[in-house]
């Protein structure tokens, strides 16, 4: 290891800054936090620039045998790269969005910076136990963020968040211990190539599923999410929806699929079933919400169901689509929560009915909000379209029924998002105080404009985001090819084979 340990530095900067924030006063803490997250963002840009697209699968590898039983081993592939970029991109925005926080600012910033370090750690860890430590430790800052700076029901929400996720993860820990014992290694790249006994795979898969399904979250273990979102402060919701939910998807794509390919095929029905329910049910629930944050939280569950469906399509389109949905949802839901935060800061209510006709007094706000609404719906030209289209095209090859049901999610998504937008931005200005609200201030522009640019970029030229992970997706697809279940789609390329050959094929 003779190159600059950029991943360790990216972990270290926010950790160190977080410690300083604990001791600093409010104004100083804000400055330190913003500076640290911007440094990390700059390092992230550097990371992407130096990332050799199409080169070695694992890059920027670092290894330091510091501990007993596991080691400090970092490294990224294209998938991890993109998720790290998402994290470092959203963090400075979160810090900017925390202007309304006025109590215990130092501790708040410290918690957020710790969160950032742990998120990068989750995506960069190449050792099984190191991954677990980062994955699990993320609960601590989030518990504090919700519990200390959250809304009225914050204590209930923080407990629910913590205990739900903890129960899921301890099962994963036991599975990891078993895996390390069986394969005699904790190295994630090696484990991705290791063939576990198919009978054992089933149990291991279920244990990992317990953790990732809660994190994702999948129906029916999604109920912690609306509570956590509604109670968390704006920046907490942004990071929760933007990055933490992606850890579940990342877990599936990094662990469940490549490590347990045969079990993934065996349990595909479970994923399909839960995802289909989630798409329809949570979309319908979203339709009747009167609380803006709850509505967006339920829409997250529906979008994440599209991700799981795409992941378990076992083909390139599905996997790539899922990754793009994750990235896109990371940006869009973060932006939507920020939009909610912008008007919440002015009126201090999340009730949809308290607003109306904002397009008149807040035209720029309405414009940006419209863009993110459309991206959430999946309008072509925005990031949402690319991801959802690819995922659904992927699953269509595997099961047309699942594709059919999942696609209703797009229609329902359009329904609840447009309905939300109409109630907030259009119509008459029934509330005088809402009508008197100012339009975006420069700080809010700084938060929303970069996300809008990224959303359009991903929608117009997705190749920038597809290229880094193409090789990794192909590797996973090759790993899954042997065991993937037969799909119900019958593609016929070119001419049909002669009758005799077709019969011979039908015989086995």
């Amino acid at each position, binding site marked *: 290891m003779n190159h600059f340990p950029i991943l360790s530095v990216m972990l270290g900067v926010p950790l160190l800054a977080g410690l300083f924030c604990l001791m600093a006063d409010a104004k100083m803490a804000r400055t330190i936090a913003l500076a640290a997250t911007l440094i990390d963002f700059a390092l992230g840009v550097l990371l992407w620039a130096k990332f050799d697209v199409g080169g070695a699968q694992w890059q920027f590898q670092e290894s330091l045998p510091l501990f007993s039983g596991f080691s400090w081993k970092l490294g990224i592939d294209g998938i991890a790269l993109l998720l790290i970029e998402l994290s470092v991109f959203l963090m400075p925005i979160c810090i900017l969005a925390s202007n309304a926080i006025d109590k215990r600012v130092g501790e708040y910033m410290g918690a957020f910076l710790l969160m950032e370090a742990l998120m990068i750690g989750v995506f960069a860890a190449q050792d099984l136990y190191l991954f677990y430590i*980062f994955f*699990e430790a993320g609960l601590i800052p989030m518990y504090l963020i919700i*519990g200390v700076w959250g809304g009225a029901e914050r204590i209930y929400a*923080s407990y629910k968040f*913590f205990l739900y996720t903890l*129960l899921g993860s301890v099962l994963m*820990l036991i599975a990891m211990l*078993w895996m390390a014992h069986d394969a005699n290694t904790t190295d994630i790249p090696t484990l991705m190539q290791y063939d576990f006994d198919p009978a054992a795979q089933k149990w291991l898969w279920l244990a990992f599923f317990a953790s990732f399904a809660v994190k994702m979250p999948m129906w029916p273990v999604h109920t912690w999410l609306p509570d956590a979102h509604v109670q968390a402060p704006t920046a907490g919701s942004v990071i929760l929806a933007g990055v933490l939910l992606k850890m579940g998807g990342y877990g599936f794509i990094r662990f469940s699929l490549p490590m347990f390919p045969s079990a993934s095929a065996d349990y595909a029905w479970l994923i399909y079933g839960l995802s289909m329910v989630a798409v329809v049910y949570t979309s319908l629930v979203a339709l009747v919400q009167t609380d803006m944050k709850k509505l967006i939280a339920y829409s997250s569950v529906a979008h994440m169901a599209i991700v799981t469906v795409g992941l378990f399509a076992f083909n390139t389109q599905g996997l790539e689509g899922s990754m793009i949905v994750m990235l896109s949802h990371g940006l869009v839901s973060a932006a939507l929560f920020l939009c909610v935060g912008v008007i919440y800061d002015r009126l201090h209510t999340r009730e949809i009915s308290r607003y109306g006709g904002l397009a008149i007094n807040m035209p720029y706000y309405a414009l940006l909000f419209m863009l993110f609404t459309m991206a959430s719906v999946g309008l072509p030209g925005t990031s949402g379209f690319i991801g959802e289209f690819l995922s659904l095209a992927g699953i269509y090859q595997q099961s047309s029924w699942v594709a059919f049901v999942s696609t209703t999610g797009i229609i329902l998504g359009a329904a609840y998002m447009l309905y939300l937008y109409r109630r907030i931005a259009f119509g008459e200005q029934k509330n005088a105080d809402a009508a008197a609200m100012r339009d975006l201030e420069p700080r809010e522009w700084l938060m929303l404009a970069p996300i809008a640019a990224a959303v359009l970029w991903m929608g117009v030229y997705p190749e920038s985001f597809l290229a880094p992970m193409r090789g990794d997706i192909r590797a996973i697809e090759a790993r899954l090819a042997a065991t993937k279940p037969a799909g119900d789609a019958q593609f016929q390329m070119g001419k049909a084979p002669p009758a005799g050959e077709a019969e011979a094929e039908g015989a086995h």
Partner: protein
Amino acid sequence: MDWIQSLRIGAAEELLSTVGIALLVGSAWGQGRRDARAITWVAVLTLVAAAVITAPALWHGVRGAEALAFNGLLSGDAFAAFAKLLIYVAAAASLLVAPAFFEKYRAMRSEYPVLVLFAVLGMGIMVSATNLLTLYVGLELNSLAAYVLAAFLKPDERSAEAGLKYFVLGALASGILLFGMSLTYGFTGTIGFAGISATLTGHASMGALFGLVFVLSGLAFKISAVPFHMWTPDVYEGAPTPVTTFFASAPKVAALALTMRVALEAFGTQAAAWQQIISFVALASIVVGALGAIGQRKLKRLLAYSSINNVGFILVGLASATQQGAAAMLVYLTIYVPMTIGGFVAILMLKDDQGNQLEDMADIAGLSRTRPMLALGLGSIMFSMAGIPFFFGFWGKFVVFQSAVNAGMVWLATLAAMASVIGAYYYLKVLKVMYFDDPANRVTGRSDMVHEWLLASCAVFVSPLGYLVTKGLTALTMTAAGVLFPLA
């Protein structure tokens, strides 16, 4: 085997008994506050000296015949050395925290350090015993000192009650233990661990199994494992807090090390028989400890249940009956001791402006705003006890689960891990009270500097920095645990 070698192996015990007796005599003349403080410091230094004498055995991995003293009654092997070092550290900490506490009640007397020294001596004999009788002598020496310590705060009714309860139930447990020993002797014809292990091969007779069950029950009382845990919350709550600090750390180590020796060395050939018992006791302790703690309003009672819970996790390592499992238990103990001491020291630091001790959950409401560093210290210890990574407490749980999984007891590890989520709830509750609730502003008194330093060092140890010692710790514990597995 000559007397010189025997005396050299038992050097730490000889030092402790000599200094203990000398201080006992000295304390007859020095009863003032200053004298008590001086005697406390001498006792601490004696413990340090004993640690220095003991440490080389661990370092060189002493085991087998070269470790045996007094015709096989004691063994100064690496395992005993490891346990003794932990005991000395724990005892020294409970000596250091005492003066500031007792002086408030005008009860700081020179007997306290003397009694602690004798208890430590007993514990040293417990962990080195390779013979049922030495074991019993060590256990009783420790227990008798402990009964008096529990009742040390004479004017306090709760303290007297704790002493009496501890004594009555402890005597009962000793009886059970003795009965088990006599059965074992009757059916094996020997009281040496090596002899028992050599006799009990193959299918053991019913009588020998009864002996095993009674011995384990007696020991389960000493480590406060379910179903012999009932005394723990009352004694922990009633005893003066420095004494509770002592009870929760040093004797736990000694009794657990003793249990390991008895189970793995004496009854090692009957592992299949006691593995079921230990698995049940482990799970029951985890669950009862976790559920019992939920409703507690007194912090000391909460920590008492937490210690029952922790003993359960440690026993998961014993249930796997492997060298890795034994090493995992020692790792867990090494992390558990500073966590517990830190927890009780934090409680000692909760004082109102008159210097009275506060012990209620409600007293620490909003502590993070009035005393941020104290809250941070106690908070780290709580997260660590809950086993949430990246705090170091996670590592203890991790290694015991690992040993269980590697020994093929995945079910035990799974159930224990799921039960640990219940435990997480009440640790979180402490955090919630400190961080989320509005300040009660009751903790206003100044804390002692020794307490501050102790809490700070415990908090640093359980912080992620602790992981840096894992390499050395694994090597040392594997050496120490190797002593119990002669064939490995």
